[in-house]
């Protein structure tokens, strides 16, 4: 193909015999990891804001966090942890070519994710009932520290819930593809990457839980 002599000249033709030369699972996984790093920094920015405002208003943050129910937070944490384990087990199942088990584990993950959102709905709902929602009169009357705490609470858990929704979408897509045999023991990149994304959602919550519900 080229007539020039040079060190970068073609020597041999290389093309590994591969059924689908455009497929590169490692590349997809790397892409997903890079995206996860981006997401970590996205929440990282919020953790900076949280740290700074907590440092500036630690008494107010202390008192404000008592408004949140530790029990609800704990239940949600355990739900997410279990869902993380089930999605990992779903991947194990598909690797072992056990389609049925994979579907069961994945359905369990999706179910748990929905339960998480329902819990969140009631948790937020009870705040809203007390007149505590972004832009409400009550929120406008809060002291500076409380205002920052609840702004961060709504914003960070809200953004986390958006990520749960995206994760739900990815997991559901995987579920459909497993059913249609598009995800198999030799081709499970999408499930693996959706799993990674789901673990990220869990990872963020692991920090949100103590920061908002526990520490004082």
């Amino acid at each position, binding site marked *: 193909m080229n007539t020039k002599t040079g060190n970068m000249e073609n020597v041999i033709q290389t093309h*590994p015999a*591969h059924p689908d030369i455009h497929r*590169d699972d*490692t590349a997809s*996984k*790397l892409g997903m*990891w890079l995206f996860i*790093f981006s997401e*970590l*920094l996205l929440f*990282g920015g919020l*953790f*900076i804001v949280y*740290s*700074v405002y907590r*440092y*500036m208003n630690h008494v107010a943050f202390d008192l404000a966090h008592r408004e949140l129910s*530790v029990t609800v937070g*704990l239940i949600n*944490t*355990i739900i997410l*942890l*279990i869902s*993380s*384990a089930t999605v*990992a*087990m779903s991947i*194990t199942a598909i*690797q*072992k070519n056990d389609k049925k088990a994979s579907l069961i584990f994945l359905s369990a993950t999706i179910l748990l994710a929905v339960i998480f959102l329902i819990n969140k709905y009631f948790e937020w709902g009870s705040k809203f009932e007390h007149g505590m929602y972004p832009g409400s009169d009550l929120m406008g009357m809060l002291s500076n520290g409380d205002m920052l705490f609840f702004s961060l609470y709504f914003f960070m858990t809200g953004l986390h819930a958006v990520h749960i929704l995206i994760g739900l979408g990815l997991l559901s897509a995987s579920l459909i593809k497993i059913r249609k045999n598009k995800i198999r023991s030799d081709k499970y990149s999408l499930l693996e990457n959706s*799993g*990674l994304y789901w*673990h990220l959602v*869990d*990872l963020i919550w*692991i*920090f949100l*839980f*103590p920061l908002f519900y*526990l*520490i*004082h």
Partner: protein
Amino acid sequence: MSKEPNHISGYKDHLMILGVLILLTIITVAITQVELTALNTAAALFIAALKATLVLLYFMHLKFDQKVFLIMTVLVLILIAAVIGITVIDYIDRY
């Protein structure tokens, strides 16, 4: 593209990790119910970091994957810590 050897984690491994994670969660809640002031913040965050490490290594498979993923993740986490640290320095000094 060469095919990388795949490590398959067993169901039991996942369940064990899950058990440890739930146990750690309960410990955090227990610790923070006791008034230990600054110490319980540190303990809660330490345990959270521990849990995150378990999720990263086992659920997210970093322990068994190519090392490059692990190296990248560690560097990114250091970066986040450094950015938070540098920003907070400014506030420690001002308040």
